[in-house]
């Protein structure tokens, strides 16, 4: 459902430029338990968020990712790290691995490169 809503929101907002710019202070605006990716640096522009894996990001966010936040919740036996890959179905190289609470506002090398991600117990 969340995924459906996100998709609908994305489709709707794809036509409008730049919205929901994240505040400069405080944690990035990313729901708890989710991994979030923004089209713009510093958690700005359109956002995609997932609580599970996605082997092939939708076209509006794949290879347009510019900032990332892992707001996963840790616990015994829980997959709380996120590995981001440059190809679909976790193929190619891993561009970044984030533990819960870690955020990346910009990455010159991995900017606009992500295509898939998976949750794991470690990196």
């Amino acid at each position, binding site marked *: 459902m969340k995924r459906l809503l996100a998709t609908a929101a994305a489709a709707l907002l794809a036509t409008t430029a730049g919205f929901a710019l994240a505040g400069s*202070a*405080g*944690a990035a605006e*990313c*729901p*708890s*338990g989710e991994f979030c990716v923004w089209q713009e640096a510093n958690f700005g522009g359109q956002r995609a968020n997932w*609580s*599970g894996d996605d082997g*092939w990001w939708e076209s509006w966010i794949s290879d347009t990712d510019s900032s990332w936040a892992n*707001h*996963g*919740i*840790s*616990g*015994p*036996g*829980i*997959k*709380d*790290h996120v590995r981001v890959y440059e190809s*679909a*179905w976790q*193929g190619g*190289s*891993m*561009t*970044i*691995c*984030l*533990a*819960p*609470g*870690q*955020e*990346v*506002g*910009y*990455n*010159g*090398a*991995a900017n606009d490169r992500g295509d898939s991600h998976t*949750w794991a*117990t*470690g*990196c």
Partner: protein
Amino acid sequence: MLRTAARARRAAIVAAASLLLSGCTVVAPGGVGTPTVPVTRAAQDELLRSAEHRLVVDCLRGRGITLSARPRAPDDDRVFRAALFGAGPRELSVTLATGATVTAHEDGCLAIARQRLYGDQRRWFRAQVTVDNLRAEAQARMRTDPAHRAALARWTRCATPPLGPRPDRPAPAVAARCDRESGLDAVRKRLEAAEMAEVRTLHRDELATYRQLRDRALRRAAELPASGPPVERPHLS
């Protein structure tokens, strides 16, 4: 008023927890009930995970928040995130060789739990982020290698249909066949192993810090007193 009470309660819990932790480090060698650190990596990881989870739950409780499975309204979730992940400036920051600047807050319960477990959250953050991304760094170096570039060019030719442009994403079966036929798989395996060895040498200081702080955290985790009331497992699908 409520805020002050919460702050006082938090301070009391922090003080109690540090007393408990520091008290627990005084263990007679070989004495009865000496905590033992598990031998296997998997069991060690699980011990650290459980200990961190318990410290986080205690810290959140001190802020009047329960870690629960129920979904939160957006405003409640914002309060919860600020308590767990922190708020304000991003005090913890490491720029990796891959170009990513990884940041986190120092004032959330997650950071406070790590401070207690690892002893020095700034050193731990730097070491952990670096070590967690050694593979990403090795793979970034691998992509610049001429042998990798050549194999990738062969792969692209293989995945391009005779007529028309290469599809944006070839079917998984085609991709797997091209991995084999282009030799890209084999080149990747060979180069990645060499680059991993190289980046491990480059980051030997961070690796040493990582091991040192992890060993300390394992001892602390093993010494943590028995758990309080049962904790509801967080929801993560």
